[in-house]
Structures are given as structure tokens and as C-alpha cells.
């Protein structure tokens, strides 16, 4: 084995080790992910058609489908709580919920108090119903309790990897409109 090859091999070993460590970390400060896996996922939802709709006590719409996919991937049962955005997000901050959906966007002032995921969808043609009704980007996110970084990383990976699920969920948006 030449020096060069050995160096490449060494680099690969180091990279693999780093990856192994990187996969184990981060962990949750409250063990949320471990609790949800094979257990229950406490989800709060605020209706915001077409992102979140109310289908007899459970969330439907784009984000409802995402939540169901997420629960399936973890073998978890979902317990739904219906409420207003502010009360749900307060409960989320106090770690009484594991996830909140409600058509939230990345620039919401709540971003300082709860953990938003990376945007799973960027809506470029969104019309803001403000005085100046102008078009701008809207980055759609889910909200998680702050500091549960293992859980956050899991959800962000899920959103990036499950493109097919996301695509079908977004396609269903037209039906609910």
C-alpha cells in the first residue's frame, strides 16, 4: 500500500469515526426521541387550511400527512391536541407537547421560544394579507420543543429524506383548498 493510499484510508477511517460519533449525537436534553420511538407522540395542531385541516379531532392537510408519516417511521401513536397557535406553542415551550403544526413560517416571532425545523417547503408565490398585499417567500416549518436536539435532527432528516411523502402531501394541498 502506498503512502498516498494509506493516507486516503486513514482519512476514510477518521471520516467514518466522525460520522459514527455524529450519528450518536446530538442527544435530547429530555429524551424526547427515545420516548416517542415505539411510544406516543404528543402533537398540537392549529387549523390553517390547506396546511393543517381538522379531520374529526385529528390534523389533516399537508402537515397532518407529514406528522402521520413521521409517527409511522418511529412506530409511534399520535395523541392530538387541538388549540390556538399561542397556547400550543406555549405548551410546546414547556415541553408538554412534542410537535406543533399550524402552517407556521420561519419568520414567526415564536422562533425565539421554540425550535423551528428547517423549511420543508418554500412557497414563493405567497400573498401576505397585509396592508401592502405583496408577494414574498413563505418558508413552512414545524415547531419542536427547544433543546431536544436529537429529536430536531431526526425530524429535519426525515423532512429531507422523505421527498416522496412530502411531494404527495403537497399535491394533496390542492384537494383541500
Amino acid at each position, binding site marked *: 500500500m502506498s503512502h498516498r493510499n494509506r493516507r486516503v484510508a486513514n482519512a476514510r477511517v477518521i471520516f467514518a469515526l466522525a460520522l459514527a460519533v*455524529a450519528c450518536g*449525537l*446530538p*442527544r*435530547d*436534553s*429530555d*429524551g424526547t426521541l427515545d420516548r416517542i420511538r415505539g411510544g406516543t407522540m404528543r402533537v398540537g395542531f392549529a387549523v390553517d387550511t390547506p396546511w393543517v385541516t381538522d379531520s374529526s379531532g385529528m390534523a389533516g392537510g399537508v402537515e397532518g400527512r407529514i406528522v402521520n408519516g413521521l409517527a409511522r417511521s418511529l412506530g409511534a401513536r399520535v395523541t392530538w391536541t387541538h388549540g390556538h397557535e399561542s397556547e400550543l406553542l406555549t405548551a410546546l415551550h414547556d415541553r408538554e407537547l412534542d410537535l406543533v403544526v399550524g402552517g407556521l413560517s420561519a419568520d414567526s416571532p415564536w422562533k425565539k421560544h*421554540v*425550535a*423551528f*425545523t*428547517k423549511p420543508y417547503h418554500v412557497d414563493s408565490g405567497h400573498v401576505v394579507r397585509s396592508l401592502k398585499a405583496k408577494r414574498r417567500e413563505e418558508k413552512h416549518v414545524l415547531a*419542536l*420543543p*427547544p*433543546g*431536544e*436536539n*436529537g429529536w*430536531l*435532527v431526526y425530524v*429535519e*432528516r426525515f423532512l*429531507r429524506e422523505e421527498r416522496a411523502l412530502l411531494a404527495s402531501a403537497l399535491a394533496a394541498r390542492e384537494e383541500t383548498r
Partner: protein
Amino acid sequence: MSRGAFTYPPEKAEARRKMKRLAWASVVGLTLGAIALASTVGASQAMKTAWVSDLLTAVPAAALIVAMRYELRPPSPHFPFGYLRSLSVAFLVTACVLTMVGLYFLYDSLMKLVHGERPPIGTVVLFGHQIWAGWTMVAALAFSLTIGFTLGKLKMPVAEALHSKPLFAESRMNRAEWMSEGAAIVGIVLVGFGHWWGDAAAAAFISLEIIRDGWDNVRQVIADLMDESPTKLGEHALEGLPRLVRAEVKKLPWVADAGVRMREQGHAVAGQIFLVPRLDGMNAAELTRRLDEVRECARAIDWRLHDVTVTPVSALASDDPPQA
């Protein structure tokens, strides 16, 4: 030339050029470090503290560059004592800013600890791989740490050669900086292991370092403004220079007694020599010539001696001026 512009002896001029290069390297390096940190900062308190303090530690270096432009200007009608103290002015500003920012950060991170605010750190996508953002933060911190470590190490010998308090303090500051970045890395890794308080605790620790740095500098600048006798580099102990000059002057056969008081002016040392001459029929012309000689000799004792006034007096009390 003791009332004109201060000049560095040739062997020190090289050190001064090096100092200027280091100051520029600090501004560039620390700004790069701050950019690296700022681009990965996210919601981590320790990271926020680290990047702002990175930028702040570049401020003294920038102030030093400005001060060095003025330092060697000859005295003018407005500033008959010259511009040597521009170094102290630059340092006063820096010291105050450092202390205040440190206090703010301490307050901010302690509040986060008290309220139990947990830092959310998600993922970033890097070259197609989705990894925890904590790792990119650690990488940015390590990059910035290396810069601070190198700068601190390079500055120390130059500061010693020039007996430069500003540069010495900067070197110490770089050291505090890289150590605190090490603390921030520990904080991020603690968060990775699920210890949410690690981040804010590291930030609080970093703030304490900043405050200590700032306070040290404030004390030093205030002492300078109070015309403190020259002190040893990085210490509060007095230098032996005034005593040495006094002893040298007293050796002259025509001097009966001498007293010396000195103060630091930037890199230079200014002061007064009082002496009681043995007149022995010496005329006024002879006396003034000899007083001029004493002034010239001072420069030979130490290159920093500049703007020394020699005053003949008829008598001196033993503690006038007080000797260390």
C-alpha cells in the same frame, strides 16, 4: 533631541514594524474568525458570545494601527508634548468597550440559565450531507481558536522587545480569547450530549474572561493617565529605571545629589531629573552645557527615555521626589 519627535533606535524599529504587521494580521485574522463563527452561529448563546468577542478583540489591534500613525509625529503648537500618548487613548476606548460588552454577555447568559432557555441546534446541509449544525460550529470555533492562539504567541516576544503594554495586553487578550473558544467547544459538545445548560454556562465563562480582560486594561490605562511610574510588563510592580537613572546621575563628580521622577508615555518614558550641582565657581554657561549633557546621556541609559527635563535645584529633601 529630547523635545522633538520620538524616534526608535534602529534595533527597535524592526520590532515596531513587526508590531504593525501583527496588528494588521490581527484585524484580518480575527475578522475572518468572526465571519466563520457568525456564519454558523444559529441559536447557540456561546457561539454568539464567541463571534462578537472575536470581532471585539480585533478592535484594539485596529486602534493600535491608528495610534501608531500618530505616535511619532513631532510636537505641534496644539500638542507641545507630542503624540506619544495616542497609544493610551486607543487603549482607553478599547478597555471600556471590552468591559461593558463582557458585562452584557454575562447578564444575557445568566438570564438564559435562570430561565432555563434551551438552545435548539438543528442540522445543516454541507456538500450534500445533512449533519448536526453543532459540528460545523465546533469546526468554526477550532478555526478561530487557531488564529487567536497563533497571534497571541507571535505578539509576546515583540511586546517584550518594545516593552509595549498595549501589545502585551493584546497578547493576553488573544490568549483569553482562544481559551474561551475552547470553552465554547466544550459547551456545544455538552449540548450534543443533551446537557442544555452547557451552552449558556460556557457563554457565562467566556464573559467572565472578557470582563477580566477589560478590567485589567482599564486599570492599566487609568494608572497611565495618573502618571504612574513605569511598571514592569504585565505586572503592577515598579520598574527600576528611575532608580538606575538617579544612580547614574549621582555618579557625576559635579553632582552633589539627584532625584528622579518618571512616567510612561506610550512606548516612551518621560520625566524629570532634579540635581543639586557642586558649583565650585562654575559659571552659568558651563552649568547649562553640563545639564544638556545629562539630558543627552539619559538616552544612552535606556532607549525609551525621551523628553527628560533636567532641573538644577539648590537642595533636595531625601523623599523629593519619592523613590521606590
